[in-house]
C-alpha cells in the first residue's frame, strides 16, 4: 500500500481545516472563499478511488484515535457528503456576495465540513464523537448566520437539542466501551451485542442520534425552524449531509447483524413511519417552500429509519438493510440538497429560458424524491421495500411505505407550487441570479440526470409489479392534488400548522421547566441564605473579624502585613531549617 493511500483520509480532513486556519490572515480570506470547493476534492477522490485505504492510526493523539478504513458504508456516505459540500461551497461564494460576515461564514462552513467528513472517516469511538461534536457546534454558526431574531431562535433550539443529543450519545459510547477503552468502530457492534446494557444503549442511541436525524418525534422540532433561516448552501448541507451523520451513527453503533432486538426494531419502524406521515401532513400546510422541504426531510429520514429498524429486528437481513439505507441516504442527499439549493436560484429576475430549465430540473428532482418510475428514487425505494420483507408485518409496512409516497407527492407538488409563486412575485431586485449560483446547481442536476440515463439498473424496475408500486402513489397523489385544487377554487384554505409544530406546545413546557429551574436556583439561594443566617447567629465570622480588627489596630499602617509576613516566613524558615538540619 502506498503512503498516499494511507494518508488519504488524513488529507481529506486536513484540507478544510487548513483552509479554515488560513482565514486568520485577513489578506488570504478571499482566496479561501475561492478555494473552499477544492477542500472537498481529496475526500471525493478517496470515495471514488478503486483501492481500499488502510486505517491510519495516530497513537498518542486523544486516546489513540484512528481514521478508519473506507468500508462500503463509509464509501457511500463519503461520496454524497463530498459532492454536496463541493457544490455547496461552489455556490456559497456567489450566494454570499460581499456579505460583511462572509469570513465568519467560511470559518463555520469549513469546520462543519471537517466535522462531517470526520464522522464518516472516523475509525474509533472517540474520534467519531469528536468530529460529530465539531459538526454539531459549527452548524450552529451556519444556522444563525443572518443574525435575525428568527435565526437566533432557531439556533438556540438547535443548540440545546444538539447538546442534549451529544450527551446521550456520550452515555451510549461509555456504556458500549465498557472498561474505558476507546474501541475501534469495527468492534463496536459486537461489544454492544455482548453488553448487558444493550437495550439501554439502543434507547440512548435512538434519542441521541435521533435529534440529528430529525425523524424521532418529538426531537425533530429544531429542523423545520433551522432550515428556512440558514443560508441556502447551509440549508442544503443540513438536510443533505449533516442530518445523515445521525443515521451513520446508528449504522456504526447499533449491534446490527450481531443481535436481534425486536422491541427496539419495532420502535424504530413505528417511529420512522410516524415521522414519514407527520412530515407529510404538517409539511403540506406550510407557506414557505423551504419549510415544506424541511418537513419532507423529516418524512424521508423516517423511511430510512424503517430500514434501520428491520436490521435491528432481523440480524440476517442487516447487511442488505444497511446497504439499502446507505443507498437511500445518498439518493435523498443529492435530490434534497439540490432542491434546497434551487430555493436560492429561484426569483423574479429569471428569464424565460432560465425558468424553463429550472422547471425541468426541479421537476426531475421532485420525481426523484417521489420515486416515480425509473428514477433513482424508485430504485432506492425498491431496495427498501425488498428489505422490509425481512422485518415484522412486511405487508403492512410495505403498504404504509407506498402510502407515504403519496405524502411525498403532495409535498413536492406543494413545493413546486410555492416556488412557482416566487417567480411571479414583483421583482424587488431585478436581474438574473449570478452564474455562480445556478451553474453549480445546473451542473449537478445535469450530472445526476446523465448518470441516471447511463447506468440505471432498470431490470428490476421494469417488472410490472415494481412499475405499479412506483406509479400508483404518484397517481393517487395527483388525484388528491386535483381535488385540493378544486376545493381551493371554492375558497377552501389549508389550516397552517406553525413550523416546529409540537415545539409550540413545548414552549409552554419549556417556560414551565425554566420556572422550575429558577425556583430550584432560588431554593438553593435560600438554603445558602439559611446557612448564612445560621452562621450569623453563631457570629463566628463577626468574632473573628473583631479579633482581626483588634490585631489591625495593634500595628496600623501599610507595614503591618510586611511584619506579619516576615513572622510567617520566619516560622516557615524554622521548619525548613529543622528539616535541613536533620537531613
Amino acid at each position, binding site marked *: 500500500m502506498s503512503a498516499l493511500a494511507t494518508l488519504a483520509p488524513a488529507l481529506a480532513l486536513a484540507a478544510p481545516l487548513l483552509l479554515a486556519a488560513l482565514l486568520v490572515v485577513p489578506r488570504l480570506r478571499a482566496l479561501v472563499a475561492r478555494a473552499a470547493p477544492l477542500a472537498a476534492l481529496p475526500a471525493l477522490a478517496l470515495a471514488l478511488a478503486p483501492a481500499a485505504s488502510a486505517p491510519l492510526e495516530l497513537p*498518542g*493523539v*486523544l*486516546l*489513540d484515535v484512528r481514521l478508519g478504513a473506507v468500508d462500503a458504508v463509509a464509501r457511500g456516505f463519503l461520496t454524497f457528503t463530498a459532492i454536496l459540500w463541493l457544490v455547496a461551497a461552489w455556490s456559497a461564494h456567489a450566494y454570499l456576495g460581499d456579505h460583511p460576515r462572509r469570513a465568519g461564514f467560511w470559518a463555520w462552513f469549513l469546520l462543519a465540513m471537517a466535522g462531517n467528513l470526520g464522522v464518516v472517516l472516523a475509525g474509533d469511538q*472517540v474520534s467519531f*464523537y*469528536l468530529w460529530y*461534536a465539531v459538526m454539531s*457546534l459549527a452548524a450552529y454558526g451556519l444556522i*444563525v448566520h443572518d*443574525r435575525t431574531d428568527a435565526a*437566533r431562535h432557531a439556533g438556540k433550539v438547535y*443548540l440545546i437539542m444538539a*447538546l*442534549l443529543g*451529544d*450527551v*446521550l450519545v*456520550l*452515555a451510549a459510547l*461509555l*456504556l458500549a*466501551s*465498557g*472498561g*474505558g477503552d476507546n474501541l475501534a468502530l469495527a468492534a463496536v457492534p459486537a461489544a454492544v451485542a455482548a453488553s448487558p446494557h444493550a437495550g439501554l444503549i439502543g434507547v440512548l442511541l435512538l434519542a441521541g442520534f435521533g435529534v440529528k436525524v430529525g425523524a424521532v418525534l418529538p426531537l425533530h422540532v429544531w429542523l423545520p425552524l433551522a432550515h428556512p433561516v440558514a443560508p441556502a448552501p447551509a440549508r442544503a448541507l443540513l438536510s443533505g449531509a449533516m442530518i445523515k451523520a445521525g443515521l451513520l451513527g446508528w449504522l456504526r453503533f447499533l449491534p446490527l447483524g450481531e443481535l436481534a432486538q425486536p422491541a427496539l426494531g419495532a420502535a424504530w419502524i413505528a417511529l420512522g413511519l410516524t415521522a414519514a406521515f407527520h412530515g407529510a401532513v404538517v409539511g403540506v400546510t406550510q407557506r414557505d417552500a423551504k419549510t415544506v422541504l424541511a418537513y419532507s426531510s423529516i418524512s424521508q429520514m423516517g423511511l430510512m429509519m424503517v430500514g434501520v429498524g428491520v436490521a435491528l429486528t432481523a440480524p440476517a437481513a442487516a447487511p442488505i438493510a444497511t446497504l439499502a439505507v446507505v443507498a437511500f441516504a445518498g439518493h435523498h442527499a443529492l435530490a434534497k440538497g439540490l432542491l434546497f439549493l434551487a430555493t436560492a436560484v429561484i426569483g423574479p429576475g429569471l428569464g424565460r429560458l432560465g425558468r424553463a430549465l429550472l422547471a425541468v430540473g426541479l421537476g426531475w428532482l421532485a420525481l426523484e424524491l417521489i420515486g416515480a418510475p425509473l428514477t433513482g428514487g424508485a430504485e432506492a425505494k425498491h431496495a427498501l421495500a425488498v428489505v422490509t420483507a425481512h422485518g415484522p408485518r412486511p405487508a403492512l409496512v410495505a403498504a404504509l411505505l407506498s402510502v407515504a409516497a403519496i405524502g411525498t407527492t403532495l409535498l413536492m407538488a406543494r413545493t413546486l407550487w410555492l416556488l412557482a409563486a416566487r417567480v411571479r412575485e414583483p421583482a424587488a431586485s431585478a436581474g438574473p441570479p449570478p452564474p455562480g449560483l445556478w451553474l453549480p446547481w445546473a451542473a449537478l442536476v445535469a450530472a445526476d440526470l446523465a448518470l441516471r440515463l447511463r447506468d440505471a439498473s432498470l431490470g428490476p424496475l421494469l417488472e410490472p409489479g415494481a412499475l405499479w408500486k412506483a406509479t400508483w402513489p404518484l397517481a393517487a397523489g395527483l388525484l388528491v392534488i386535483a381535488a385540493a385544487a378544486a376545493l381551493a377554487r371554492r375558497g377552501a384554505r389549508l389550516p397552517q400548522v406553525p413550523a416546529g409544530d409540537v415545539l409550540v406546545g413545548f414552549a409552554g413546557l419549556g417556560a414551565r421547566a425554566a420556572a422550575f429551574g*429558577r425556583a*430550584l*436556583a432560588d431554593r*438553593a*439561594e435560600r438554603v*445558602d441564605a439559611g*446557612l*448564612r443566617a445560621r*452562621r450569623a447567629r453563631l457570629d*463566628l*465570622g*463577626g468574632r*473573628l*473579624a473583631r479579633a*482581626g480588627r483588634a490585631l489591625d489596630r495593634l500595628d496600623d499602617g*501599610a507595614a503591618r*502585613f*510586611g511584619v*506579619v*509576613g*516576615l513572622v*510567617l*516566613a520566619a516560622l*516557615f*524558615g524554622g*521548619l*525548613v531549617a*529543622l*528539616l*535541613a*538540619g*536533620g*537531613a
Partner: protein
Amino acid sequence: MTADLLPLWVLLSSLVASVAIFGLSERRVATRTAINLVAAVVKLALVAVMLWGVYQGARYEVRVAFVPGADLLLRSDPLSLLFISLSAVLWLATTIYAVGYLEGAPDRSRFFGFFSLCVASTMGIALAGNLLTFFLFYELLTLSTYPLVVHRGTAASLAAGDRYLAYTLLGGGLLLVGVAWLHATAGGLEFTVGGALPPPGDAAPSYVACFALLVAGLGVKAALVPLHGWLPVAMVAPAPVSALLHAVAVVKAGAFGIARVIYDVYGVRLADTLGLLRPLAAVAATTIVYGSLRALTQDDLKRRLASSTVSQLSYIVLGVATFGQIATVGGLVHLVHQGLMKIVMFFCAGNLADELELHRVSELDGVGRRMPLTMAAFTVAALGMIGLPPVAGFVTKWYLGAGALDAGAPWVVGVLLTSSLLNAAYFLPIVYRAWFGVRREAWPPPAGRLEVRPTLLGPTVVVAALALAAGVFAATELSPLRWVELIAAQEYGP
C-alpha cells in the same frame, strides 16, 4: 547540594524569594520582578529534575525528628509530583500575569511576598510525607493566603477575608483533631502507597470518625457542599489571587489532601471496606450539581466561575471516592485538567476587567471582536469544561464515566452528563454573547498593538494551549493522563 535535598530546594526557592521581596522597598519594581521570575523559573527547573528522577524510579526524602513518634518528612512520589508540576507551571504563568495585572498598584511587595509564601506552602503540602507535615503546611497556606484575599483592603474584600479565615481555620481545627486522633489510634502514619493504616480490629469506629474529621477539614478547602461558602465570596480578590485560589494552590490542596487520605493513609481498599467512599461520593455528586445550579444564575462573571469551581472540584473528589482504577484516573487527572482550564477562565475575566472594565456576563455582547484571543482562550476552556473533545475536560469525563460504570455506579454517569448540560447552560451564554452578541457603540481601542498587555495575554493563551494539548496528546508518554495511570496502577497494585 545532593539530590536527596531536592524537596528542600523546591521549598526554599519560593521561601527565599518571599523573604527577599518582603525586605524590598515598594519602588524597586525591576528587582522585585526579577526575583519573582528567577524564583519561578528555578523552581520549575528543580521540579523538572525531580520529575525526571521520579519517572526513573528515584524517591527523594528529607526527614527530621519533630515530636515524639512523628517526624517532619518531605518526600517525593508520583502523586506529589503531579501536584507540584501543576503548581510550578501555573505559578510561573500566574507570576507573569500578576506582574502585569498589578502594574502601578500599591503594596506590591506585600502582595508578592505572600504570593511566594503561598506557593512555598503548596509545595510543602504536595511533598509532605506524613499527616503531621501535611497539616503544618496546610495551615501555613491558610495564613499566607489571607493577606492576598484582603489585598485590596475594601470592605468587601475584608468581609471575604473574614469569611475565608472563619471557614479555613474551622477546617484546620477539624483536621488537627482528626490527625491527632488517628495518630493516637494508629501511630506515625507516613503516607504509603496502598495505605498506611493497620487493619482496624476494634478501632474501626475511630477510623470512621477520623476519616469524617479529616475529610471535613480538607473539604473546606476543596469546597464540598456545605463547606463551600467562602469560595464564591473570595472572588473579590484580584484576578491572579483567584487563579491561585481556584487552580494553583488552595482548592487543590483540599482535593489533593482527600486523595492522600484515601489512598496513602487509609488505602483505597480499607476505605471501601469501611464504607467510607460511598457517602463521600454522594457528597461530591451533590456538590457537582449544586455548584452548577448556583452558577446558572450568577451574572457576575467571576462569581459564575467560582460557583463552577465548586462543581468542577468535586469531579476530583467523586473520581477519587469511586472504587476502581479507571475512576481514580479520571479523578486525579482532573486535578491537572481543572487547574489548566479554570486558570484560563480567571485570566480571561482578569483581562476583561483590566482592559474594558467588564465584570458582568450581561456586558459581554460582542467582546469577541475587541478581544479575540482572550475570548478564544475562554472558548477553549469552556468547551473543555463541558467535556467536549479534544480539550482536556473530555478525557476527564471519559475516564470518570467509564470508571463509574466499571465500579457498578451508573448513576455517576447521569450526574456527569447532567453536569455537562448545566456547564453548557452557564458557559455557552458567555461564549454566545462574546461571538454572536451585538454591541451598538464602539469599544475603546487598545493602547498597544495587542488587545491587552502582553503580560496578561501571554499566560492566558499559553495555558489555554496547554489545556488543549493535555487533551489532544492525552495518550502520549508524558501526558498528565499517563502519569496518573501510573499512580492509579500503584495504588491498586497487588
